[in-house]
């Protein structure tokens, strides 16, 4: 079932359309990547989802019902890119306070904060102040605060920046766990390798519009250029076939591009006939990074200001 359904969402600012008719839907338990270059409108979109901004057009269905800006925001956990905590407030108290703002009772909040602090080995931080924490420690704290009230929708903006690999893995595991427990996660980042690793669904935004939507493997297949890597016992002579062409050579193999209308079997067939020993055969799918660059390249790096028409 869809936890979130976004229909033709639009938000205009004085100088530009920040978000222009964006639609997508998000299922319970899925991890969703929201990608796009700087200034693509991701933050504005997220702010509309969290009820901070009201959309100019379109609507958001949350859990099957129109988004209620009074009661629904507490079912969302949002970790903005720019971390924010009270620097001079004690950490334990602060976590409890923010959880109470999300609608937990003091008792519940205290219990959960304690549980999370134990889990993340943060017990000794309780009476420290945020200003005493390192960037990575602050990050962990912010993550705990975001998910403490067990939100149905979790929005994470660059959650791994500043974290070492150990802590990154810790948080990654928690994200998987939260998704398994039925929360939907929206994950906004520029780090494509993390998206490939974690997300099962992505959309790509550019200049306020959605330009790509699909599962990670589906998107990759969509942008597949029919490239295959083939490992050979020895590479000798010229290789030529109507079925494919060689686009690269390696130590122990070739990179080939299969022409339209032909199948991988044709490639294998060719080498088997030549009695060349095949050690491996694998499709080379484009990385999300390549796709991202391909789609966004050519558009101006910095978004230009333009007056809103219509």
């Amino acid at each position, binding site marked *: 079932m869809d936890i979130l359904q976004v229909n033709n969402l639009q938000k205009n600012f004085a100088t530009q359309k920040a978000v222009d008719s964006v639609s997508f839907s998000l299922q319970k338990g899925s991890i969703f990547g929201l990608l796009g270059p700087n200034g693509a409108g991701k933050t504005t979109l997220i702010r509309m989802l969290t009820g901070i901004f009201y959309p100019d057009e379109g609507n958001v269905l949350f859990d099957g019902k129109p988004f209620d800006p009074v009661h629904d925001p507490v079912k969302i956990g949002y970790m*903005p890119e720019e971390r924010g905590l009270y620097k001079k407030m004690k950490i334990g108290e602060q976590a409890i306070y923010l959880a109470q703002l999300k609608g937990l009772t003091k008792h519940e909040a205290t219990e959960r904060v304690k549980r999370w602090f134990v889990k993340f080995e943060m017990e000794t931080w309780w009476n420290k102040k945020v200003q005493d924490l390192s960037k990575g420690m602050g990050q962990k704290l912010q993550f705990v605060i975001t998910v403490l009230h067990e939100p149905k929708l979790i929005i994470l903006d660059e959650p791994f920046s500043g974290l070492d690999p150990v802590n990154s893995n810790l948080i990654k595991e928690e994200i998987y766990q939260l998704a398994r427990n039925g929360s939907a996660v929206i994950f906004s980042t520029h780090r494509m390798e993390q998206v490939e690793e974690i997300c099962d669904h992505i959309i790509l935004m550019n200049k306020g519009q959605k330009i790509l939507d699909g599962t990670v493997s589906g998107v990759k297949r969509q942008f597949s250029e029919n490239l295959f890597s083939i490992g050979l016992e020895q590479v000798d002579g010229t290789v030529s076939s109507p079925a494919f062409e060689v686009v690269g050579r390696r130590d122990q193999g070739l990179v080939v591009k299969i022409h339209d209308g032909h199948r991988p079997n044709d490639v294998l067939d060719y080498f088997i006939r030549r009695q060349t020993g095949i050690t491996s055969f694998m499709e080379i799918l484009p990385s999300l990074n390549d796709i991202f660059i391909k789609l966004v390249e050519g558009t101006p790096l910095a978004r230009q200001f333009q007056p809103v028409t219509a």
Partner: protein
Amino acid sequence: MSKIWLVTKREYLTRVRNKTFLLTTFLLPLMIVLFVIGAIFIAVSGKSHNRIAVSDANGYFKDYLRSDSTIAFDFSPDIDTLNYAEKGCTAALIIPVLREDQKTIYRLKYKKQLGFAGEEDLAGKMRTAITDHMIFEKTSLTRGRLDSIRSKSDIAELRTYEDRGKESKESKQGFLYLIGYVSGFLIYLLTFLYGAAVMRGVMEEKTNRIAEVIVCSVRPFELMMGKIVGIGAVGLTQFVLWVVLLGGLFLAALGFVPHDTWLEVQKLQQANAMGNASTAQASAAAEMVFNTTNAVGSANWGLLLSCFLFYFFGGYLFYSALFAAVGSAVNEDPQEAQSLLLPITMPVIFSFIIMTIAIQDPGGKLAVWASIIPFSSSIVMMARIPFGVPGTVPLWQLGLSMMFLILGFLFTVWLAGKIYRTGILMYGKKPTWKTMWKWAFTKS
């Protein structure tokens, strides 16, 4: 509602637990007391003493113009307008021959200003001298006789009573003036102190970016109101502590008064009730205790305190909402806040100036209007109330003033809420009043 309460609680507790709160609560009154004592000490000890050389054309003043502790007159003939400074005089008075059928101008030449009060003093002494001269010239009264009449004429004393229908209450204008001034000043001070605290708090949340985390669980308006109410409650706590502290000190001081003095004070009270103001047989200490308790007893403390609380909170809400709006609009740079603050601080400062004028004439037109308009009412009205409700301040004025103040802060809170909602998440360029106006009055 419960969320405003949560925010309020946090704002209140983090501030009250802070060491600076304790320091300001206990050190500020101490500093003010020390400052006042110091100022009085300097004023008393530093009262300037002037020696004035007199060149009196026909000796009209020689026997009549009298020196005292503030001005000494020097009639020695070898001092003139050219060398008075070398002879140790601060000024030279040049009096031509006076004629009774016209006003003659006499002149003072000075190197060092006498000051406003000094000039008044000099002119008064001259008038007395002329009167005395005329009395002796035109009547047969002797000098000794006039002096003894003067010294014995101090047989009446003014006491003022506020007419309250059935009963009337003795009032001490000087004391009421003091209370009015202190109340007005306190509200002025607290408005600035806590208004600025609200602004800093909002700026902190904005620059820390915690606003973005919080506004997805709390509506911006709730966050703003929680902050304003929480900080207001801190101010209230501080004020209550001050009142308790001062009241305690006063009672403690009374406890140190010896029993004998109290007996004398009782006698004074009885004498006073009989309409006898002579204090000849009482000791100076008893007189002081009597005057102090009388003065303190003459004020209507219940009314004063409740009005103070109302006007403190009303004025605070009115201005702190505007401070919050400015705090939400600016970025890290405190310089930016300066220029936006000007339109807010100006009315507060003007109110204070109007208050110092209004307190001289608490029933005057300026005082009445300034105490009704919500921009200045919290400060000016508080300076008027000690002079008497419903005497000096008729009930309709008090009611109107309170109503306008409530309407006023409802308006500023509403307006600030609109600006705050947009401003708290805006980063980058410093907004102008025009863009803030747009945030407030265009729907989004």
